[in-house]
């Protein structure tokens, strides 16, 4: 055994870019996966994160001349997406998995990245989970009007979040031109997909500024640029959570009405619904609390008709045949 492989290299990486730079050096120096201990700087404390950025990492010298490291563009994208997976208890670390796949590819083992391979399989599963979670974010995040800006709003949000100050709906609420309004959302992604969500919403909302707060990071869009903050500023989080619970954005009442009416009680199907919309999202949806109620009503007779009961109670009207 060589000296290099007997004392493992300890390499922290906080994001994909850092991992990629380190991995390239390690591959060029011929360091096998077993000789590297990867530290996930996304999972550890802030100061460690800072030291990783300061360039304090010790890496081996590449052999001269350094062998080129090549990877297909789509495989690189796959690695990047899969690295956003948050590993659970007992799962192998994200960087170690990526490096082993990379190492095997570098050795000419093309099947290493295939979905039927021992490593490739895990990689693809993670990629799938990340894609799914990004999709969840695109789908289930809810924006609320965020009418006051900056410090004032932050203070207000913090106060309200701590249970103080009752809110009175603003009368001019709808008269404020929506095309210039700001929006705010709270979301709890299960994987590191904040960037994937933010890019998507910048495409959608264009000139409407928005702010998204999550338990880890936050992002603000001013109509031109995305401003990421890790960790999420507490004031942002407080404001976002308050907007969700305050119920001051009355447009969500219209949405709730729509949700009730578009539901067809005769087709009640709890299993399929929860399969597509896991319960963990419900409490952050403005329509979430309606679901158990609608199901209960459907079970107690509502299934007899497709029509929403409250619509059926309204006064009806038949029409004369057309004059021909």
């Amino acid at each position: 055994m060589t000296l290099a492989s007997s004392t493992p290299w300890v390499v922290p990486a906080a994001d994909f870019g850092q991992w990629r730079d380190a991995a390239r050096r390690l591959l060029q120096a011929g360091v096998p996966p077993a000789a590297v201990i990867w530290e996930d700087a996304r999972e550890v404390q802030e100061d460690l994160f800072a030291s990783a950025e300061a360039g304090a990492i010790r890496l081996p010298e590449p052999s001269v001349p350094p062998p080129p490291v090549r990877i297909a563009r789509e495989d690189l994208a796959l690695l990047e997406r899969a690295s956003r997976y948050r590993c659970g208890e007992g799962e192998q670390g994200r960087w170690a998995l990526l490096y082993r796949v990379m190492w095997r590819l570098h050795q000419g083992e093309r099947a290493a990245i295939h979905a039927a391979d021992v490593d490739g399989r895990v990689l693809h599963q993670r990629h799938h989970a990340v894609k799914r979670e990004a999709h969840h974010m695109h789908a289930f995040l809810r924006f609320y009007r965020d009418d006051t800006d900056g410090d004032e709003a932050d203070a207000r949000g913090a106060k309200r979040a701590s249970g103080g100050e009752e809110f009175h709906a603003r009368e001019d609420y709808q008269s404020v031109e929506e095309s210039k309004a700001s929006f705010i959302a709270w979301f709890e992604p299960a994987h590191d997909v904040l960037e994937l969500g933010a890019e998507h919403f910048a495409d959608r909302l264009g000139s409407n500024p928005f702010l998204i707060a999550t338990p880890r990071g936050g992002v603000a869009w001013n109509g031109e640029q995305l401003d990421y903050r890790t960790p999420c500023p507490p004031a942002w989080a407080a404001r976002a959570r308050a907007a969700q619970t305050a119920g001051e954005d009355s447009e969500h009442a219209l949405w709730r009405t729509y949700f009730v009416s578009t539901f067809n009680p005769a087709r009640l199907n709890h299993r399929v619904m929860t399969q597509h919309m896991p319960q963990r999202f419900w409490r952050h949806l403005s329509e979430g609390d309606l679901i158990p109620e609608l199901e209960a009503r459907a079970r107690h007779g509502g299934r007899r008709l497709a029509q929403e009961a409250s619509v059926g109670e309204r006064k009806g009207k038949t029409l004369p045949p057309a004059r021909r």
Partner: protein
Amino acid sequence: MELIDKLSILADAAKYDASCASSGAPNRSSRGKAGLGASSGMGICHSFTPDGRCVSLLKVLLTNFCLYDCQYCINRRSSNIPRARFTPEEVVRLTLSFYRRNTISGLFLSSGIIRSSDYTMEQLIQVARLLRETHQFRGYIHLKAIPEADPRLLEEAGRYADRLSANIELPTLTSLKTLAPEKQLGTIHSAMGQIRQGIDAANDAATQEAKHPPRSDNPKRMAPRYAPGGQSTQMIVGADTTDDRTILQSAEQLYQRFRLKRVYYSAFSPIPERPAGLPQAAPPLLREHRLYQADFLIRGYGFAAAELLGKPGNLALDIDPKLAWALTHRDTFPLDLNRAEPALIARVPGIGLRSVQRLVELRRHRRIRFQDLIALRCRIEILRPFVVTQDYRPADGQRDSARLRQQLTAPQPAQMALW
């Protein structure tokens, strides 16, 4: 009437249209532009109602006043239901408001026939025009095409909408005559034909212009000028005695003749004021599900409708149509996955299209082993009797189909009874 009351009535009136898809639109973004909205080809389900159906679009009728008397429809003129009518501006306001809050990806607008077909179509177009031109809305728009409307109006609708649909509702002349006396199959077909021509012409023009494949960023190239999300239609299942074979054959013809993107199947749901002759039963959801499976096999797997259902009647409820086909074609199986043509692998029950692709890819590197099927998450219990791999050959390969079917069938699923 308050906006919220209209919404309650006109969303309820629109729920019988099964489609809520926002897929197939070209790439559009509002970054750095005035206006609102994006589309990416991939549909988004923003919510699911407790019926398990996706909410992707604001799906409403402009009005549920209607001159027609289609028997299966809650909005027919003889039905004693609350009526309402949106102004075009109200629909626009709701669409933009919901869109900004991220509860929808666009609008699906349909309408009862008021005054005349042309007038009704003009109203629908007016909403789309306001959204696209006044508000520069780049989200998804699906408009209902009123078949009897002037061709000029269908032409105009296709320039604003991502998708157009004219519903067949009932696939045979006789059922249409009995249940929807004012509708003409010929008129519906000619509307579909016109939409197809519009789409074909736009696609041809786009191909001519494009030197690059259609994923480029050039907005001109990305936006064919006519219904880029294609056209779809819907058939009602279980309102009359039409069988699955007739339904699937009609669907197949529609795909071939008009190049539809999708045919939707809508299990007939009990409506208030049910006219005589229509079932007062729970919607046949399992039957609808089997039709969607068969439809998918026709669109994606190269099956012909006649292969899936050779005789008059309905698809089996207890097994899916692919397994049913395999059980009647035992001479094709077991199939050696290391040798078979990809198109034939796609016919193995339990192996989906994505897995076919991956298996073919894997064959280039090494021989396929049974373990690979597990790793690819194929449905092992189902495919076991039908495949051969390097290290596996089914022990029950010789078992007769009836016994195999019994073995592969989960406990008899019954149609759910309601009362």
